[in-house]
């Protein structure tokens, strides 16, 4: 008989590792099982082409919870978040719009396009900041069940109520608007400059199968404002070594706390006896007993694949089936002989353009993104997609051989299911659409490409296991957030099966490399332990 672990965590993504680390720090004997040879889930860095390291899927960090960094002492385990100081939006007319890391420079830049927007930009930023500050404590809170009269739930609701009461009236009204409006409508209230609205609205659609004019996307804007680095809100950074660097740091912290981690150990099933999870069965047939099992996989994979649905209440299975987890984005990673030269802000004598240090956003207008969405709505990938690109090798020189570069392109929209289905030809056509789009702004790009990795939603699903390739383990829509994530009544990391827990981004608060789900799940499990 094998050792009985205190807990087995399924999935070695950032949340799985975080749950494991917290449990181990509380003295539990913990095993993490990862299907792949590399840890990190969607936060991995891989040398897909020799000498060039791709931050394969997720590529920036903003939301990683400060308490996770602090409590797991991640800096000691190698976490370095390097600045990503700007966002550059090239325009079809050869001009550009940039947001720099200096308010004066940014104001001047927007002023070029619209004097009024230059001021509105600061007011908008302050309003979002105020609301993010108001909403943010929810990120570190176990969602109270509003229908429950349990003391913890009542206390949670009370805290929530107190919080809402602390909001100034104007903020409360604004919050109500954010919860209901589309990103485009909200931005129309503030701005007149199309590239600015386009670029801002993009943060409202990331990871959703919605367009900037779809209601509910305004909230996603706010979600991104809750990011914070070193006390600075709305800060984005690039982790040294790519997002895989974050996973490595967390894994190192977990190991230091005594966690055992096995890679290439895919789980076939959660073993349930008498309505109680008692361990897992690996695909190789090994059975590993444990007192607790926690899955960091997405809700569909956990409840529809790893567990016999017959063991779950019918309405719960139904809710999980309905849970929206549509894949909407792809990823293109490029190995480059040199940096592409953007017509709008050419490379200077030192070999760079200021834009290379930050993000390049292909989002010239709200219409552009909405049209990209139109393609997706009708079962095609966007012929001219929204792109969010960075040059990891400019920020972290160790990502590519000296003088060479890697480029990471997040691409939306790419539906999971397209007309005729994804195949190799369509994947290449998708990659071409991305490169062609970029080449309109940086004509020399094509001649610099040494290697190209194109990832469609089915590819993301196949490699990482994320259902439909959805990067958030379920869309950030209001009807599946907070006490509704992933399903009403099951938002407190428990599941209908005793001793089976959920700890991935499919639980509150979800989304992005945040780590809050993993941490809160561990804390809740430890409470149960007592």
């Amino acid at each position, binding site marked *: 008989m094998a050792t009985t672990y205190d807990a087995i965590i399924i999935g070695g993504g950032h949340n799985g590792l975080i749950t494991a680390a917290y449990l181990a720090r509380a003295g539990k004997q913990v095993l993490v099982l990862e299907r792949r040879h590399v840890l990190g889930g969607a936060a991995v860095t891989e040398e897909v082409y020799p000498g060039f390291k791709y931050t394969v899927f997720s590529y920036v960090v903003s939301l990683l919870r400060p308490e996770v960094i602090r409590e797991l002492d991640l800096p000691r385990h190698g976490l370095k978040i390097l600045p990503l100081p700007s966002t550059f939006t090239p325009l079809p007319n050869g001009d550009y719009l940039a947001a720099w890391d200096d308010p*004066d420079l940014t104001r001047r830049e927007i002023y070029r396009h619209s004097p009024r927007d230059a*001021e509105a930009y600061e007011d908008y930023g302050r309003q979002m*900041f105020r609301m993010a500050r108001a909403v943010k404590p929810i990120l570190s809170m176990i969602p109270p069940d509003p229908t429950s009269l349990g003391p913890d739930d009542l206390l949670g609701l009370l805290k929530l109520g107190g919080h809402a009461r602390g909001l100034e009236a104007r903020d409360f009204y604004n919050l109500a608007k954010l919860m209901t409006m589309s990103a485009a409508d909200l931005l129309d209230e503030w701005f007149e400059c199309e590239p600015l609205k386009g670029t801002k609205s993009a943060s409202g659609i990331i990871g959703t199968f919605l367009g900037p004019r779809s209601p509910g996307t305004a909230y996603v804007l706010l979600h991104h404002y809750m990011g914070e680095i070193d006390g600075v809100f709305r800060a984005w950074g690039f982790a040294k070594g790519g997002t895989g660097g974050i996973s490595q740091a967390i894994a190192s912290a977990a190991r230091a706390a005594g966690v055992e981690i096995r890679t290439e150990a895919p789980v076939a099933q959660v073993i349930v006896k008498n309505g109680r999870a008692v361990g897992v069965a690996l695909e190789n047939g090994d059975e590993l007993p444990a007192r607790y099992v926690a899955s960091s996989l997405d809700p569909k994979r956990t409840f529809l694949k790893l567990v016999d649905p017959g063991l779950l209440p019918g309405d719960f299975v139904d809710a999980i089936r309905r849970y929206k987890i549509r894949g909407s984005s792809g990823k293109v990673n490029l190995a480059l002989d040199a940096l592409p030269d953007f017509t709008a802000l050419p490379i200077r004598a030192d070999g760079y353009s200021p834009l290379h240090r930050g993000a390049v956003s292909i989002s010239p207008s709200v219409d552009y993104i909405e049209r990209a969405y139109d393609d997706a709505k009708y079962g095609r990938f966007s012929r001219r997609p929204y792109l969010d690109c960075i040059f990891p090798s400019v920020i972290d020189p160790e990502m590519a051989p000296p003088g060479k570069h890697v480029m990471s392109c997040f691409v939306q929209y790419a539906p999971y299911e397209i007309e005729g289905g994804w195949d190799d030809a369509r994947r290449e056509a998708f990659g071409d659409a991305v490169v062609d789009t970029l080449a309109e702004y940086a004509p020399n790009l094509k001649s610099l490409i040494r290697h190209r990795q194109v990832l469609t939603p089915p590819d993301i699903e196949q490699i990482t296991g994320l259902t439909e390739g959805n990067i958030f383990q379920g869309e950030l829509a209001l009807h599946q957030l907070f006490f509704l994530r992933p399903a009403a009544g099951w938002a407190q990391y428990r599941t209908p099966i005793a001793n089976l827990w959920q700890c991935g981004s499919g639980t509150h608060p979800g989304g992005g490399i945040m780590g809050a789900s993993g941490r809160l799940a561990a804390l809740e499990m430890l409470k149960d332990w007592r």
Partner: protein
Amino acid sequence: MLRGTPFHTRTAPLCQAQNWRRWAGSLVAGSYELSHEREYWAVRDSAALFDISPLYKYLITGRDAARLLDRVVTRRVSQCAVGQVLYTPWCDEAGKVIDDGTVARLDETTYRLTSADPNLRWLHLNARGLSVEIVDVSERTAALALQGPLARRILQQVSPADFDRLKYFRLAHTTVRDVPVTISRTGYTGDLGYELWTDAAHAERLWDALMDAGRGYGMTPAGILALDVARVEAGLLLIEVDYQSARHALTEAETSTPYELGLGWTVALDKGNFVGRKALQAEQARGPAWQFVGLEVEWKSLERLYAEAGLPPQLPAATLRASVPVASLGRQIGYATSLAWSPLLKKYMALAHLEAAHARPDNLVMLEVTVQHRRRYAPARVVTLPFFNPERKRA
């Protein structure tokens, strides 16, 4: 890169200290020489030339120009004569100050508003339904301040304007050599002084003309550090230092009403409706909770505190822009926001917010000072602002 002002080609070679300061997104000299002392004394003894181009400037024209301004600012703009300038704050709906600046009536239907922060959007938001045009002329208008007892005599060398009749807070359209300028008798030093406004294209010629005219009068270009001492002596507020703009504030406690900033005299409650009027009416009836006052540190006590540590008194070299607690009977009753030694008055002075009950002149309060890393309290007396108010300012 941050930009220089229209005078940058002239100021840059003169700035030996290379201590460029950022002002509204532009670079201006902190001081030209390594120490700002001579530049400060020029303000009080001869004349100093300041580049004040980074101020935001808006031209407001049209039938309803005065109505718009009356709607926005607290002073009564409708009674501002052609050629007159008004200093005024403006508030949000809650009566909390957003910004302060001047309104100059350039002609029958044209006003120029200066401000510390961008206000184009705020003006537009309040201009709905009014027949008015608002143009941001911040970048195309260059501005200099010539401040000090000899300022008038210098200008008389190069301008035909009748300076003897140009009264305090009035302006004249005239020339300096051949450069068309508007000269207003205004400033941020509390001394005799003028501000000169011209098209940015003429900036260098205006600078050259004034530098040339000032040569025989000990005039010197001066930077922000000298200005910052002079304005404390003059009891003049600085946004984001002495008060927080209601637009930037995160909490209500950070904000101030004009009454709390000693600007009650600028609030024309009976002029008709304007932004913040209701709240200000209530505030006036209630009386403000805070007062903005001057503090004069009692020198002997300060000396004693330092002597106990075996040291002579140590004072900030320039104006200290920091929040320093003020206490009474062991309880904090306020905070100082600008502290400076006045070389002219030989006093250690501070601008401070005090709870109203402690703010009457001559009241003794305790100002926190750090003596050799330790917290001490020096007695300081409440004084009416300004600290320095020479007759020549208005004469």
